[in-house]
Every structure is written in structure tokens, then in C-alpha cells.
């Protein structure tokens, strides 16, 4: 991330601010919104491995979120496991799913892969919705709170900090991976898969790694999600949710950690700020998504840095196209 050093002081301030603000502000509503931002940030960072680094469109990321949540929830409620103990099992279940689905399908072209992952997401949601063991349409309730040593976390503020830690952790992991041969291999695959082979990169295996990495982060997020909300149900794990994560990553900036954070913030914060548009929120999102893809397909803050020059160029091009279109309509009389 080339912009890292330049952004470091700003990032430090933001980090400090984020760490203190729930205590400072004291509003449960704002804190809970912030917590939802963090949850989406975690999911976005997870999807970033798949979409942003390896360049594979995954439209069913909610499946891993679901597998993590439900595995953890079931163990905690039915078998009375402490939440932390369910974590490795949830991750293992998610990894299994990733390997099972990924192995035969990751070699497909990106468009087919997108549909298959979409299907996978639908199937998982279908399953948890239809099985009695997973609570059917009502889901699981009574998930115990997270206990870390002597501390039991029950407040929104508490979970704000839990997810805060997760975000920091995920950012660190993303950063480290990006700066290693793993990250470079992924990006090579994303940029030019055929040429990546010529570097000695085992493309299929690395694609699976990216998918697995995403699944781990999704499952971890899901585990803590259950504790935070006490109850989980199928509607939270559908295509709409997968799409929100995709929007966060693609609008924020493909492959960039800042972009994922920014995108997640925008996706959650926007409807909260414009509450009166709540019903039309997704419509506005759709328009925003299309606009960003047409004018700035790499997202707002992509890997290559903000590159505002390109942004101005896109804006100029868009206005030119609009005026051209308008004058053609009006002038052609």
C-alpha cells in the first residue's frame, strides 16, 4: 500500500478517535451503528482476499458468515460451549465448505464462478432456513455472551470494542499477506492469470487459498456476531447481505484495505444518515454502484492510491458525455 506512510499520522489519529469515541459520546445508538460498520468492515476485509486480491467475484460470501455463526451458535446454545471455544470449530467448518465448493469450481471463469458462488450462498441460506436443527426460519436464540477470562461482555459498547479488535487484527493480517509472496501471487493472478502461471505460480491452489482466507475471516466474524446479537436467523445471511459486502469492497476500492474500510463505512452509514430514504436505500445504492462502476471501475480508493487525477478525468468525461447527449437531444431538431 503505497499510501500507507503518508496516511500513517492520519490513521493514528483516526484509530485513537475510534478507540475513545463510544465512551466520549455515550450514545448507544451511535455506538451500535458503529459496531455494525465494524462488522461490515470485517466481512469486507474477508471478501477483499477473494475479490480484491485474487480477483474472483464471490457473490455468496454470506455463506461463510452463516456457517461461522450457526456453527458457533449451535455449539454454544445446544452443547453449552463457551463462545471462544467454538471459534476453531466454526473456522474449521467454514474452511471445509470453502474447500468443498472451491476445489471443483475455482478454475471456472470469473463469470461462471460468480453464479456458482451465488448459488452456494443461496443453498446455505436455504439449508439453515429449512432444517429443524438450525431453528428453521426463526433461527437460533439465546446465544451466550462472549467471555474472555473473567470478563463477560454484554453491552453494545463492549462488543464495539470486540469488533474493533477484530478489525485491527484483520487489517494487520491483510497487510501482512499483501506484502508477502502470497499477496503478490494473488495480485498476479488477478492482473493476468495466464501470465501468473509463467511465474511458477500454482494458480488454482492460490485461488483456493484466497477463498479459504476469506472464509476464515467470515467465520470468525460470524462467531462473534452471534454473541453480540444473542439471536441469529436466516434473513441475515442471504444474497442481499453478500451484495452489501460486495458493494463495500468494489465501491470502496478493489484490493485496498482502506477501500474496504471506506466502503463498509459508506454502505452502513449512508442509510443511517439519510433515514428518510430508508426504503429507497437499496435503490440509491444500485444507482451509486452503477455510477461508480461506469465512471471509476476500480473503486473510490483503490490499491493504486487515491489518484485524484483519474477521478477528475472521470468526472470530466462524464460531464462531457452528458452535455453531448443533452445537446444531441436538444440540438437535433
Amino acid at each position, binding site marked *: 500500500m503505497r499510501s500507507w506512510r503518508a496516511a500513517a499520522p492520519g490513521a493514528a489519529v483516526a484509530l485513537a478517535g475510534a478507540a475513545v469515541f463510544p465512551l466520549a459520546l455515550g450514545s448507544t445508538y451511535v455506538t451500535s451503528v458503529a459496531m455494525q460498520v465494524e462488522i461490515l468492515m470485517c466481512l469486507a476485509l474477508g471478501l477483499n482476499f477473494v475479490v480484491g486480491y485474487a480477483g474472483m467475484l464471490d457473490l455468496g460470501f454470506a455463506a461463510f458468515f452463516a456457517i461461522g455463526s450457526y456453527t458457533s451458535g449451535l455449539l454454544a446454545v445446544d452443547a453449552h460451549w463457551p463462545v471462544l471455544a467454538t471459534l476453531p470449530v466454526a473456522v474449521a467448518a467454514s474452511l471445509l465448505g470453502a474447500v468443498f465448493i472451491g476445489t471443483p469450481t475455482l478454475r471456472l471463469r470469473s463469470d461462471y464462478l460468480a453464479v456458482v458462488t451465488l448459488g452456494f450462498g443461496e443453498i446455505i441460506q436455504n439449508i439453515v432456513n429449512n432444517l429443524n436443527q438450525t431453528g428453521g426460519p426463526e433461527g437460533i436464540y439465546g446465544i451466550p455472551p462472549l467471555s474472555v477470562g473473567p470478563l463477560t461482555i454484554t453491552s453494545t459498547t463492549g462488543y464495539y470494542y470486540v469488533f474493533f479488535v477484530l478489525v485491527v487484527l484483520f487489517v494487520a493480517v491483510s497487510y501482512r499477506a499483501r506484502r508477502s509472496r*502470497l499477496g503478490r501471487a494473488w*495480485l498476479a493472478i488477478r492482473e*493476468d492469470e495466464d*501470465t501468473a*502461471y509463467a*511465474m*511458477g505460480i500454482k494458480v488454482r491452489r492460490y485461488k483456493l487459498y484466497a477463498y479459504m482466507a476469506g472464509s476464515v475471516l467470515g467465520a470468525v466474524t460470524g462467531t462473534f456476531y452471534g454473541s453480540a446479537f444473542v439471536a441469529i436467523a436466516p434473513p441475515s445471511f442471504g444474497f442481499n447481505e453478500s451484495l452489501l459486502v460486495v458493494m463495500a469492497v468494489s465501491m470502496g476500492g478493489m484490493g485496498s484495505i482502506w477501500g474496504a474500510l471506506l466502503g463498509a463505512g459508506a454502505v452502513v452509514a449512508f442509510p443511517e444518515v439519510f433515514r428518510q430514504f430508508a426504503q429507497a436505500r437499496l435503490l440509491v445504492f444500485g444507482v451509486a454502484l452503477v455510477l461508480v462502476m461506469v465512471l471509476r471501475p476500480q473503486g473510490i480508493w483503490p490499491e493504486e492510491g487515491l489518484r485524484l487525477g483519474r477521478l477528475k478525468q472521470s468526472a470530466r468525461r462524464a460531464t462531457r458525455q452528458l452535455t453531448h447527449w443533452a445537446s444531441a437531444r436538444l440540438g437535433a431538431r
Partner: protein
Amino acid sequence: MNALLAAEGLSLHFGGVAALSDVTLEVPEGSLLAVIGPNGAGKTSFFNCLTGYYRPNRGSVRFAGRDITRLPPDQVAALGIRRTFQNVRLFPRLTSRENVLAGAHLRATSNLVAMLLGTPALRRQERLLAEEAEHWLAYVGLAGRGDVLAADLPYGMRKRLEMARALIAHPRLLLLDEPAAGVSSVEREELADVVRRTWESGVTVVMIEHDVELVMRLASTVAVLDRGRLLVQGPPEPVRQDPRVIEAYLGRRQR
């Protein structure tokens, strides 16, 4: 002298079109072989067969005695064979340095835990690799351009970057597909110089080229392909004067 690379009876066809017909040729270790021939002669198809991108319909390819005919490209690369592409395939949104580092994939550690933790050993290795990437950038004349996105480089520099990316892997065999095509005469000289220095350092080079003068200057052997067949292989000057070669390029005089 041992043949580092030996193609035997290589045949490749797409539907009714024969891209390669029974091509048999040897690349002695330490030599610089130039592959020439008119457009459509099958030169790039030949490279693709050597590197596992195409699977020949008949024939075999041996590298250092080992049959590599059916190996996929990543395994071919792992044996120490690197190539550049006729239409320069870089990773556009990666910087020059990152492109070169991508070429060093097989030389970096694959220890996942170390990567996640950022151990001192890993950091040291990364630093050394980065330094070496700088070395190779300078070697091809791109010093100081490490942070420029590959997509933003002018054409001549892109060709050189592709070479640096191949060289950081310390290949035994380097396949260059038209390294000097489409560049100014100044850049052609610089590229030729890089090729020569690389060859002199012990790398076996096979080069597809159209520039006859370049070929005469650099090559130790020349192979001529025409319409998928090997016409002749030998030292540069005799090959250049071979009537079959002249006919292939210029056509037969009509009676």
C-alpha cells in the same frame, strides 16, 4: 555440447491449420539461438508448446534430459525456464518493482505462519528480495522507476521490465519473444545489450526476432521456421544465405 532443450517431432494443429509440423531442434546449453521466419511461421506457437501453454498433438520437448511436454506452465517455470511475450504481458496495476518481485515468486518463502507474523527472518528475506529487484531494474535500465505502475510505463520500458521480471528468477533458459520489436533504434540497442549481457552471464537464450541485423550480431545459432516447418538450423551467416531461407522470406521468382 549438451542440448539443454530438445524438441523432437513437434506438431501442433488447430482444426485444419498446422501451426507446427514435425519440428525437431536442439538448443545447446550456453548458446543464443535465434528463431526467425516470416509471420505466421509458428514461432510463438513453438514457444507456447515449450512452455506448456499449448499441448502439441505429436512430438516431445525435453529440458535437461527430462520430458516436459505435458507439464503445465507453472511447472515448466519451476524448472528454470522463463519467457517474455510478444505483446508484453505485465501485471498492469502493479508497480515495476512488484512486477519484478512477482517473477521471484518461487524464490520467496512459503511459510504461512512467518508471513502472518512478520517474523524477522521473513522481513529480512523480503528486504533482500526488494534489493535484488532494484538490482534487476537497474540492470535493464529502469533504475528509479520501481514505484511506477506498469500500466504507466512507455512501451520500450515495458519490454525491459518484462525482462527484469524474467531475470530475477535466475533462469537456466530464457525465451524472448521479439524483444526488440516496435521500439526505437536507441532502445533496440539497449535491449540488445541486456540480452547480450544476460547470455554472457551463462543463461541459455532462445530469441524470436525479425531484426536480421540483430540476429546476425547476437546469435550463435539460427533456426528458421516457415509455415510450421523447420527449414534449416545452423550458424548465422550460412543460414542467412541459404536459398531456402531467402525464398521463404521473399517468395519464389515467378516464371
